[in-house]
Each structure stands twice: as structure tokens, then as C-alpha cells.
């Protein structure tokens, strides 16, 4: 009991919670930014056959084929902004590339006939994307998007390498203050548990959306 209260003292819990808050803010910002720019990059790479399409491809392949931690370090040391924003920036530039590929997968799953039907009605390219292609794309990729969100939450733990005090970072600091290895192990287990709870909640949503997505392909009756 004494052991537990030494680990989870009021001060320590508040300290960890502050870290959890940072983790969630960074993860959420990263997901929103990456989703926005990833969608644009995915569209450009898929449909622009000129220089922009090539540039998107270079961007996507560069970040997809290099480790995140490299970019976290590089941006922290090369871009003169506060650590917290540097964290969001490095996570975002990386995750954007991954999201772009997820979006592209969704775009490629759409039948060419959808474009033809839209064009045959007189829709232009951008209208076709907006009303017909993008809605179908996002419906198809909900499961992969949510998986990437889970990965992003876990990826934030890399940020303690540049002394950003997110959840893992705060945990590491606490561990440094503990005297016994038992305390360290218990805290480790607790941190793993916290990540598990957040991500398991997210994956439950994945599973639910997944079944919903399948239902869409099977008969869905909507009452009048």
C-alpha cells in the first residue's frame, strides 16, 4: 500500500495527467493536420500527372521510407520553434505521408465508372471529387484511418527523445526519481495500461465502424 501511494501520490498523478494531456493534444493535432494535408497529397499524387503529382510522390515516399524518430530529432534541432510545436510539426509531416497513402488506397478502390457517370451528367472534375469520389473514399477507408490514428497515439511516445514531456516523457522523469526497481516496474505497467485503454477504445470504434462499413456493401434498408 505504501509502495503504491509512493508511486501514485497526488503530485505524481497530476504530473502524469499533464503528460497524458500533452500526448492527447499532440496526437489529435497531428491526426487533424495529417488528415487534411494527407487527403490533398493523396488526391494530387493520384490525379495530377504533372510536376505536382511527382512532388507529392517524392514527399510521400521520403517520409514513408524513413523512421519517424529521425524526423523528430531533425526538426527539433533544425527548426527553431518551441519543443511542443516541434513535436506536432515532426509528427504531422510524417503522418501526412502515411495518411496520403491511406487516402490513395481509398481512391483506387473506386470504380472508374463513377467518374464516367459523373462526367456524363456534366459534373466537372472537382465537383466529381467532392460529391461522388471523396465521400465514397472516406467511407471505404474508415478502418485504415482509425488504425493509423492508433499508431499516431503510440508514436507520440517517441517525443520523449527530444525532451517533450508527453505521457512517456513524464513517466520517465518519475522513474528517475524512484529508488526501487519495483516502483519502476509498476509504473511501467501502469503506463502500458493507459496506452492500452486509449487505443483499445479507439480500436473498438474501428471494429464497430468496420462492421458498419461491411453493412454498407450488403443490403442496407433505410426507412422512408
Amino acid at each position, binding site marked *: 500500500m505504501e509502495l503504491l501511494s509512493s508511486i501514485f501520490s497526488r503530485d505524481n498523478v497530476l504530473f502524469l495527467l499533464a503528460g497524458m494531456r500533452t500526448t492527447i493534444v499532440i496526437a489529435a493535432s497531428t491526426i487533424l493536420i495529417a488528415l487534411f494535408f494527407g487527403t490533398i497529397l493523396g488526391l494530387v499524387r493520384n490525379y495530377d500527372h504533372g510536376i505536382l503529382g511527382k512532388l507529392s510522390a517524392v514527399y510521400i515516399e521520403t517520409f514513408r521510407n524513413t523512421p519517424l524518430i529521425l524526423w523528430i530529432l531533425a526538426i527539433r534541432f533544425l527548426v527553431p520553434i518551441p519543443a511542443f510545436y516541434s513535436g506536432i510539426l515532426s509528427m504531422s509531416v510524417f503522418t501526412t505521408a502515411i495518411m496520403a497513402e491511406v487516402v490513395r488506397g481509398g481512391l483506387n478502390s473506386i*470504380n472508374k*465508372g*463513377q467518374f*464516367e*457517370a459523373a*462526367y*456524363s*451528367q*456534366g*459534373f*466537372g472534375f472537382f*465537383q466529381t471529387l467532392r*460529391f*461522388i469520389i471523396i*465521400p*465514397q473514399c472516406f*467511407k471505404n477507408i474508415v478502418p485504415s484511418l482509425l488504425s493509423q490514428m492508433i499508431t499516431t497515439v503510440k508514436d507520440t511516445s517517441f517525443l520523449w527523445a527530444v525532451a517533450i514531456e508527453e505521457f512517456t516523457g513524464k513517466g520517465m522523469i518519475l522513474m528517475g526519481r524512484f529508488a526501487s526497481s519495483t516502483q519502476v516496474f509498476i509504473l511501467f505497467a501502469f503506463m502500458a495500461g493507459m496506452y492500452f485503454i486509449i487505443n483499445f477504445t479507439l480500436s473498438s470504434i474501428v471494429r464497430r465502424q468496420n462492421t458498419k462499413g461491411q453493412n*454498407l*456493401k*450488403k*443490403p*442496407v*434498408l*433505410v*426507412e*422512408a
Partner: protein
Amino acid sequence: MIKLEHVCKSFGDLEVLKDISLTVEEGEKLVVIGPSGSGKSTMVRCMNFLEEPTAGQVFIDGTELTAKNKNDIVRKNIAMVFQQFNLYPHMTVLQNITLAPIKLQHMSKQDAEKIAYEYLDVVGLRDKAHVYPTTLSGGQQQRVAIARALATKQKIILFDEPTSALDPETVQEVLDVMIQLSRINITMVVVTHEMGFARQVADRILFMDHGAILEEGKPEHFFENPTNERTKAFLSKILK
């Protein structure tokens, strides 16, 4: 009126259309037949610029179709029905039909739905207005696609093998709807293998092979006294 002048289309080295000139009069029902790979679908797809000709011109009511004005001209004049239906799977039947009228013709949702129900009645699917297309049979999906084409109130409807992807037992329900349409004053260009339909509905039949129009004429002439050897061979194979 649709006018093709010296239209050529190649895909790489493959010459699919060779110097096609053709006029389709307003209100005419034109049926295009021919073996697969003869270029008949490509020709029809040139009429709304789903394929842009490599050479030659396409005129709709005297206006030349260009890459620039195609959306505008198509939106105002031409609808199309596809072999694979190409309904929008993320929308209900009603939304499929009302999308273009609402977004492109700036109709109110209420008016668009009223028209949609009108045409759902024409194709006999009013009770399916709120289901998603994937729940329907092929024949029903194609009838929805026809209602979608009609709801934009175009003068011209292009049909690209509308019954080729259907189960044999649902072909007739689609043909029946098309026969019904043939009585109203719209221009229909129909690529099909359904000879009975061609005979019954066509004002004129074109026979195409190897990217060229080999024979054309009224159904009676066409089926009774074809002059071209290849037409004869094709008909003898298909009319047994």
C-alpha cells in the same frame, strides 16, 4: 442533333475509329450494332466526350464539343446509361436521381424529388426510392440509371450496351422501359446486341466493324436485304 465529322480515335497504336461521319437527327432512335471491338462503344462515348476524338469534330446542336465546353454542353443536352449502371453506391436511389438536378441545374430539393418520383414511376421503382443501389437486382439498377438519365430532362440519351451485364431474365424489363422511352421525343443512340429491340425501336440501324460504319439503313432494309458481306455474316451468326 448530333453530328460527327471525320472522327478518328486511337488508343496508342490501336486505331479504334477510322474517319466516322454521322448525323443523328433530333428525335431519332439510332441503334448501333456490330461485333465486340468494332468501335461502337467508343463512337458513342465520343458523342459526350467521355472519349475525346484524336481527330475530327463532334457537334451538338451545331456547337462544337471541346475539352473546355464539354461539361456545359453535356450538362445541358446529353445523358448516358452505362453497361455497368454506374449508380453512386453511397447514395440512395432518390439521391442518385436528384444529385445532378440539384447540384448542376440548381433545382430545389423538393422539385428535384418530385421529378425523381415521376421517373421512378416510369421505370416502376417508386417503392425503391430510399434503398441503396446495391440492394437492387441488375435490372432494377439499370432502370434506376435510366430514371437518373431522364430526370435531367436531356434531349439526347446515349445507351452503351445497357443490357449486356444483366441476367437474361431481367433483360426484358429494361428493354420494356426503353421501348416505352422510344415513343417520346428524345434522341436515343443505343449500342446493343438485342436484335429484336433494334428491329422494333430503331429508325435507323448502323452496322460497325473495325472502326468503320459498314452499313446503315432502316430496320426492314437492314435485316431483310443487307448489302455488305460482313453485315450478312454477322447477322447470320446472330439471327439463328
